[in-house]
């Protein structure tokens, strides 16, 4: 990814939402393998 996209705020806000949603769902075991 180019430096531009790495700091372009609207794109980064979108990626922030996507990555955090993905992390939350995986950490909660809602998607991916069940654990605990």
């Amino acid at each position, binding site marked *: *990814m180019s430096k531009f*996209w*790495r*700091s372009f*705020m609207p*794109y*980064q*806000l*979108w*990626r*922030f939402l996507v*990555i*955090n949603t*993905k*992390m*939350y769902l*995986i*950490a*909660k075991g809602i*998607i*991916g*393998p069940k*654990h*605990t």
Partner: protein
Amino acid sequence: MKPRIVVLGAGFAGHTAALHLSRILKGRADLTVVAPGDRFTWFPSLIWVGTGTMSPEETHFELAPVYERVGADYVNGRAVEIHPDVAKVVVERADGTRSDLSYDYCLNATGPYLNFAGTPGLGPSSGNSLSVCSVEHAVQTREQYLRIVEDLKLGKRRRLLIGIGHPAATCEGAAFEYLMNVDADLRLRGLRDHAELTWLTNEPEPGDFGVDGIEVMKHGSLSTGASLVRGLLDESDVRILMSAGITKVESGRADYEQAGSDPSSVDFDFAMLIPQFRGIPIKYVAADGSDITKEMTQPNGFMNVDADYAPKPYDQYRGTDWPATYRSPKYANLYAAGIAFAPPHPLSKPKKTPSGNVIVATVPRTGMAAGIMGRTVAYNILDQIEGREPSHHARMSEIPAACIASMGNSFWKGSAASIIMTPVARDFQKYPKYGRDLALCDMEVGLGGAWTKRALHSAFLYKLQARPGWPLIPE
């Protein structure tokens, strides 16, 4: 009589276990937490303390009020002996007195012993290097770093060595974050041109981080953590020394051995080097008073649990080698989680130097992984209290990990690598091609990652103080 549960340690694994035990048992057991400090520290943010971009007070909170709120007893002390046959722990309290604590269930989550002595000359107290492994160390590192900044302002050239201080240490991610935060901070100050940064690590390739790296599928093509991290290091003009193990640190000079090369040395004006982690020295004592520590632990001092410790070559490692319940194979009421359990083997491929020394990035098991283990043990203890065998499992080869590697703590100009991997330990039986489910792996760099890192700092300090709704925040 209520069952008695003793949790040794109040880090990611121990504190998480204690919170879940108090939540799920709801007063049906007497819970005691023994921890040598009086506060919980959010270690991932100490890299910011070490560059002066966060105050130390923002990284920790007092434990006693939290345990009072959740109905647990708190002992400010450390476990010095475990007597598993008679189910008691000998605790040395902060005032120096010793007392016994009997238990029905015990979790050893005592974390790491920072083995600075494992490398001659390493460490901030009696050695020649710095560390960010505790609040005190990070503050010390910040003072030294700010002196370097003053020198750079005067136009002096300065050499900064950042990385790993032992051939078999772990926590490469934290050292990498510190390196990239120093780089970002010096750029913001307009001083980067005068500083030479060197990254010295025991990883076999950039971005290994002790978990054998990561691959992700982006828009149909495969990209690797190695290429991403190498690109970032090159972009930042950092000198890279891979597969390197430091053997001695003198004032201003570190000797190291490297796979495939003759021994060499690197000069520095400032060195932040992570030490090797060992198990906290605890003596295990049998009913007849004999010392059974060697039967209960691996040579590195970490406690044996339900892992497969049979030695085997790298290409025969299996996902099922990793422990599932974190229970001792000898004592049904004793567990170990987080850094305190003994991993069966590394995840990274070990390398040898020409002199025969093994260079290997050992397995990180802090943060999210430790929290998941702590929660798993809490549920397994509940199983046992209710008369069942432990049914909850969290092998490293089945749990995910999210890692946000900070590369600057500025809201507008910061950056971080956001990494998700499932599972942490590759399992080629389950995922034959890469050992991981690439649909559940992700990795990217940008400002959004800096926001995530900061958001996690706040969210976890909220959660771990057992504030309202804390169970909604996952480990």
